[in-house]
Every structure is written in C-alpha cells, then in structure tokens.
C-alpha cells in the first residue's frame, strides 16, 4: 500500500515537475528580443539654398534624407580627448549642413541632413561595444567615428561586421586593427582610420626628427627615458635599435615606471651623464616629471612624446613649468598643417573657449572626408539614394580628401597594404606631420598664457626652438647662435 501510494505520489510529482519544466522550456522558446523600428529622418525642414563657387545650383539628389552619424568618445563631457572629438563632430556636421560638402556646396550631403549622436565609451572596451550597438541599432547611425583605445576599436569589430557598419577611428594609434583589415578583409573591411598615423609610423617619425634636428639643435648626447606602458613599446623598440646610429652618445636608455612620482634619482642619473637632452615618452607620469624638471632647473632639455603637453590646459595645470618642453603632436593651435587649420582652430577656440587635442581635428577631418566620399560616389554613379555601406567602403577606398586640416591629403591605404585602411603616410618631411610642438612664451600671441608653437618640420614651423635660460651653454652651442 505504501509502495502504491509512493508510486502514485512519484507519478504525480513527476508530472507536476515535468509540467513546470515544460512551462519553463516553452517560455525560453517564446523568449526573443524585440525588434527595432529603423530610425529615419525627413531631412531639412526648409528647401535648399546657397550655391557653389561657380554660381550654379548645387545638385541635391539626396534631399529629404537624414543621415545619423555616431561619435564614440571617452567621456565627451569632461575628458579633453573625448571633448575634442565630440565638439569637432558638432562643428563638422553644422558646417556640412549649412554649406554642404567642401567643393560641392548646397546643404548637407547633396541635400541629406547630417545628425550627430554622442556615445560615451568610458575608455572601456565593454562600454564601447554597448555604445556602438546603441548608436547603430537604436539610434540608427549609418556610421561611427572615434574610439580612443585600440582595445575599444577591436572590441567593436564583430559588431561592425554583423551590422556592416563603417567605423572610422580617429584617436587610437595601435596598428592591429589595420593589420586585421588586411588579413581578414571580407569580414572587417568596414574599419578605417583617419588618424593618427599608426604607432610604428610615429616611431619612425621620431627617428626621422632626430636624424634631421639633433645636430642642428646641439643634441650630441641623448638620454632616453620611455615610460613603461605598452602603447609606447614601438618607440622604445625602434629607438633601441637605431638611436645610437643617429646621435653620438646615449648614456642612459631606460624604461621608467608608469608609477614614477619622484624623478630626482632618474634626473640625477641623466644630469650626471652629461646628456644634452632627456628624450622622454611619457603619458601617465608627464606632469610630475615636468614640474620637477623645471623646479630643479635641471641641466638638460626635455621632450619627445609628452602626452600631457598636448592638452591646452596643461600650461595652467603646471603653472607654466612646461615652458621649453616639446612633444610630438598631430597639429597645434599655431600650426598651419593646411591652409584650413588656423581657421578651424580659431573657430573652435571662439566657440568652446579652449583649443582641441589632436583627436578633435582628426575627427573633424574624418567626418568631412566621409561626407565628401559619399557625395562623390553619389555624383559619379548618378544615384538618387544614400549609398549602401558596402559602397561607402569602396568610396572611401577610392577617393582622396584634400580639404583636411591635419594632413594636406587623406587617402586610405588599399586592402593589399600590410596595414589596410590606415592613412597613407610617407615621411614627416614629405607630409608635414607629425609636428614638433614646444611650449613657449610669445607675448604677440598670448599675453599671459603659454603658446603651443611648432619648431619642426620646416613646412609647419611657427617658431624657432627655444632653450631653457637656466642652462649654461658654451658659446659655440646652437643656443648662443
């Protein structure tokens, strides 16, 4: 009897269990994501006006359309690199909407209105992916611009592939994305980089700079201190291979810890070695190093790749201690990389009361280059609709952008290049970038603030190199010439 009831109970228990398990399974099967309705705008509210230089009515085959573009910037409200990216996107979009694509005119991209949408990557790969997905799928962005860390760029690659979305990198220099585009073109042809030039090219540019200027500026003996963080590895590797062939003496060659706060021991070593220049690469430790170098009146010059010095507010942050510090940069508020650079810088300063970091001008160029490529493709193919993203890849590969503010000519490397879809770059001497910026005092430009002058290369020179006045140079030294 007991067994019978036990069986019966077991059956009923099993049935009940199966019933609930079945309900759970059915729920799982029924579960599915919601579907997004595609965002679409209706373009400009008023009809087109304005014309191009020749006075003829500009073609507007894309009228009535709205194209959303996304900006993927780290902390676009507070972090200078992210702020510069978003602010420059706003400027580029407003200009295109108002005056049309450079060289074509009208309004927007052949009549299509551009709408910018901001995404905040928080400099985290996971957030970058979530924001990319939001911009593309929720906000309906046709393309995205930005990403400051290469890890963030790589994290969005699979989503780029799935959604077939073009992304143009504007602030990360790591070479890996371009390498992947070359190796797995069909999957990842969607990625382009408008700048900066990749870190291997930047390292080559540093050697080229030393080769041309070390002798002129009196740097016979050079101490090399490279902060020990991975993005600076290409510089340390290349300098280790070649710097001794360029300058007479390299008495110190070290990787400084990314946690260095007290520079006295390292500066003592550099100073006692008799080095003329302390060639640094500093991202995280640059502020403390500059303050201590200046306060201690060290008997050597200092510069190289100094990330904090690229920010306009740095002068204020270190109360002018950065005077004479030099750094590689893409563009400075003073340079005329192209005839349009200064106009952009002035308008940016007027509007945002500061100057942009390198990421801003690059993003500005990227948005305008993209717009021009689209317009060109539409006109060349007699289209009356917005080109597909597949076609935009072809357009970006095909056309050259000559209206930039950083590089006189933006042309992406072809798929067969080792680093595909990167900005084409040959040498500093030929292209004029990177520029070598030095913090100087120039009363003609600013009464009570430092000026980010450029002393090299020749075509982007805005001032001569200056020497710290506390160093006692021999009479035949270039400082006294």
């Amino acid at each position: 009897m007991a067994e019978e009831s036990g069986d019966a109970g077991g059956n009923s228990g099993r049935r009940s269990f199966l019933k609930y398990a079945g309900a759970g399974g059915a729920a799982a099967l029924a579960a599915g994501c919601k579907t997004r309705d595609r965002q679409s705008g209706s373009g400009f509210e008023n009809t087109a006006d304005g014309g191009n230089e020749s006075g003829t009515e500009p073609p507007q085959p894309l009228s009535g359309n709205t194209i959303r573009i996304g900006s993927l910037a780290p902390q676009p409200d507070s972090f200078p690199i992210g702020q510069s990216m978003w602010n420059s996107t706003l400027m580029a979009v407003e200009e295109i909407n108002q005056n049309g694509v450079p060289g074509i005119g009208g309004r927007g991209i052949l009549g299509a209105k551009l709408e910018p949408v901001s995404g905040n990557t928080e400099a985290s790969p996971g957030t970058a992916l979530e924001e990319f997905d939001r911009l593309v799928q929720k906000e309906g962005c046709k393309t995205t611009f930005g990403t400051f860390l290469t890890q963030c760029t790589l994290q969005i690659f699979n989503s780029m592939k799935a959604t077939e979305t073009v992304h143009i990198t504007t602030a990360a220099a790591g070479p890996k994305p371009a390498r992947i585009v070359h190796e797995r073109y069909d999957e990842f042809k969607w990625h382009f980089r408008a700048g900066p030039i990749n870190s291997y090219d930047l390292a080559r540019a540093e050697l080229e700079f030393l080769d041309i200027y070390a002798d002129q500026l009196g740097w016979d003996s050079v101490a090399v201190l490279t902060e020990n963080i991975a993005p600076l590895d290409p510089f340390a590797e290349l300098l280790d291979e070649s710097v001794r062939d360029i300058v007479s003496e390299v008495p110190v060659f070290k990787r400084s810890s990314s946690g260095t706060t007290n520079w006295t021991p390292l500066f003592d070593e550099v100073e006692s070695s008799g080095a003329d220049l302390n060639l640094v690469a500093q991202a995280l430790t640059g502020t403390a190093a500059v303050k201590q170098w200046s306060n201690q009146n060290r008997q050597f010059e200092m510069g190289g790749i100094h990330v904090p010095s690229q920010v306009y507010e740095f002068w204020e942050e270190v109360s002018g201690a950065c005077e004479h510090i030099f750094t590689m940069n893409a563009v400075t508020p003073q340079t005329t990389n192209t005839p349009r650079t200064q106009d952009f810088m002035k308008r940016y300063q007027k509007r945002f009361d500061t100057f942009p970091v390198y990421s801003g001008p690059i993003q500005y160029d990227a948005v305008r280059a993209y717009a021009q490529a689209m317009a060109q493709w539409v006109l060349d193919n007699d289209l009356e609709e917005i080109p597909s993203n597949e076609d935009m890849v072809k357009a970006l590969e095909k056309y050259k952008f000559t209206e930039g503010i950083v590089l006189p000519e933006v042309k992406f490397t072809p798929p067969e290049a080792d680093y595909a879809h990167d900005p084409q770059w040959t040498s500093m001497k030929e292209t004029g970038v990177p520029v070598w910026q030095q913090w100087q005092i120039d009363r003609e430009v600013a009464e009570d603030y430092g000026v980010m002058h450029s002393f090299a290369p020749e075509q982007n020179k805005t001032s001569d190199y200056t020497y710290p006045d506390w160093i006692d140079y021999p009479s035949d030294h270039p400082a006294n010439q």
Partner: protein
Amino acid sequence: MSTESESLVGGASQTERRQAVLRKLNPITMPLRYQIGLLGLLLFVLLPTQLFPDQMGGPTTLVFLAIFGMSWDVVSGYTGQLSFGHAFFFAVGGYTSAILDLQHGITPLVGIPIGMLLAGIGGLLIGLPALRLRGPYLSLVTLIVPIILSKLFTLFNNGLTPLGIPIAPQGLGGRNGPGLPTQLFGIDGSGAVFELASGYEGIQQTALANYYTALGLMVLVLIVLLAVTRSSAGSVFTAIREDEDAVAAAGLDGAKFKLFAFVLSAVVGGLAGAMWVHTIKSPSPLGILGQDDIQTSIDVIIISILGGTGTIVGPIIGAVLFAVTGLVIGAIDFTIPVVNVAVADLRPLPLLAAAMAVLVFAPGGVLRVGIRTGRRVLASARGEEYEGGPGEDEDSALGQIIEKYRTELREIINERR
C-alpha cells in the same frame, strides 16, 4: 512510517529515493526561497523579451560576471583562501582558446575545453603554494599573478616559442590582445561556428544565442557548484574556513580539499573565460583583467560580497545588484553642486560604497539578509515569534574569513617576534 525512517537513514529503495528527489524538485512543494530562486531564473530566461538586441550586451556580461563570482566563491567564500586576482583564471582560459583558434586553427569547440583544462592547471599551480602560504601571503600571490600574466602578454607580444615549441608563434598581442577569435554564434556568412540567420534577424539571434549560452553555462555551473558545496566536500571546505586544525584533527587531509577547491574554481573560471572570448569579449588585458589588470578581480569580489560569500547563489544576486546599481547611477542626470561632478561620472564609487556598507552592516550579504527578513515576515504573518532559522549561523561567513585572516596574520607576526 518504517519506510520514511529508512529513507532518512539512506536505506530507502530506489523508488523512494527518486520520489524524494522529485519532491525536492517540485516547485510547488519546495521552500519559498527556492521558489523565489526559480522565479529569478525564469526572469533571467524571459529578460530578452523586454530588450532589443543592442541592449543584450549588458545582461550577457552580467551573467558572465555571475559565473566568475561563483568561481571565486567556491574557493574564497567557502575555504576562506582569499584570492585577489581571480581574473587570472579567466584570462588563461580565454587566451588559450583564442590563441589555439587564431594561431593554430583549432575550433573553439575544442579550444574551450583545452582553455578550461589549462586554467585548471593554473589553479593547481596557485593552489600548491596555498598549502604552504597563509592568508596575507597567499592573497599577495594571487594579487600578483594576473599582473605577471599581463606583463607576459607584453613581453611575448610578437612570439612565444620556448625551445622552439610554437605555443603562440604570432605572440600574445601585448595590450591589444592576440586578435579577434572565431565567434561561437554569428550572422549568416560571418565565419562563426554556428551561423544563424542573416540581416537584423541574425543580429537578434546572435544576441540571444550568446545570452542563452551564457545563461545555460551559469545554470550548469550553479548546479555543479551547489552539488559540490552541499556535499560532504562542501562541509570540509567550510570547516577549513572555520578551523583548519579541527579538520586535521578529524583525520581529514585539508590540503587535498583546498587544492580541489582551487582547481574546481579555476576550471569554472577558465571555462567561462574561454566562452567569453568566443561570444562577446575580445581578448585583451584591459578587456579581461580590467583596468590596471586588476579591476575584473575586484569586481568579482565585490559581487560575491554584495550577494553573500559562501553561498554560490549570492554572486548571481550580487551581479544583478552590480549591474542595476551601475544602470541607476548612470541614468541619474544630476550634478553635485559644490564639487561640480555629475553623479553618473562617479561610477563605480557608489557601488564601492554599497559594498562597504554591506561589509559593515550585513556581512552575510544580501542573500542572507533577504532570507532572514523573509522568514521574519512569514513568521510574523503566522503570528509567531521568529527565533532564527537553519543555516543562519553561517551569517558570519565573511566574518569567519576575516577572522581566519586575522589569526593567520597574528601567527605570522608572533613568529617574527
């Protein structure tokens, strides 16, 4: 009557045992807390119905974090062997599978188990010193290990071929990682192991497949870890946390159990790490180990403490709280006057503050507080006075871990005198 007493002493027939198991699994007759747990699981299953595919990244990450939390809990929450660098195991699993795929052409279906295995070996290598090292020293070892691993990624950036053995002929990839491994799920023509529909439908299906795979893994890990920790091995784990000498006095080899806990934890972490890189995460030190190579490990500890250490289920609740807090704070559009900082920019500070509050006011974690409060409410509804319930003496799991740590520290200091 006799049958029931037999079943209690384990002498029951197979039918009765099956019946007992089924009774335990019957949602209607199971205790309320289990029913709530099942409801939670059902919510996890149904969550995607309320979301768009572009919103699925967060929940999928949450599920992975929960698995990582459970992996930490089984060794640190149970045996009290505090690991401060648990992301080491996730990275070993993830990188192994990614490199096998990218540089040796081995499918993730094979690479993932190998990644899991290698993480297990990593667990053995860390677990062995754990037998000799006490509290603070072991913690220091676990803290350093992911940082060393990250340095190795950079050191062998371009190639790892010791003695000519091509382990990673194209290198570990430095800060940017070894590249983009094959995805388990992707849209049609994406080259994924399982290619789904094309277009937007494919994007939806990929997001769902990634989520449900992670969820399936979470349930599997939950069942395995619950089974282990609720078995006699789990009792030994807890005993090790409470009093290692007592375990030895009982004639049990505590070292063996500690090692087992480490390897089990590492295997779970390695498996999840390997699945992670083939679903939603690109392998890179920042992506897997987190900010400063340590953030993920810290997040995992916070999740476990929030939810409740030494419970296995706690980290799931902790991960949900972790995600919800992040969402809520991120959505607050308010700037704190005097300091002029937006609340949203304060992340993850409020979360860390919440973790500290839990440490001080509810060291048992949210799970235990929830169960106790629930019992009190039920008792009061029945008009009874609540006098504590079974398992509540474990409220001090975190307290025990800290006490164990203190004792070991005291012993070390005394030895030095």
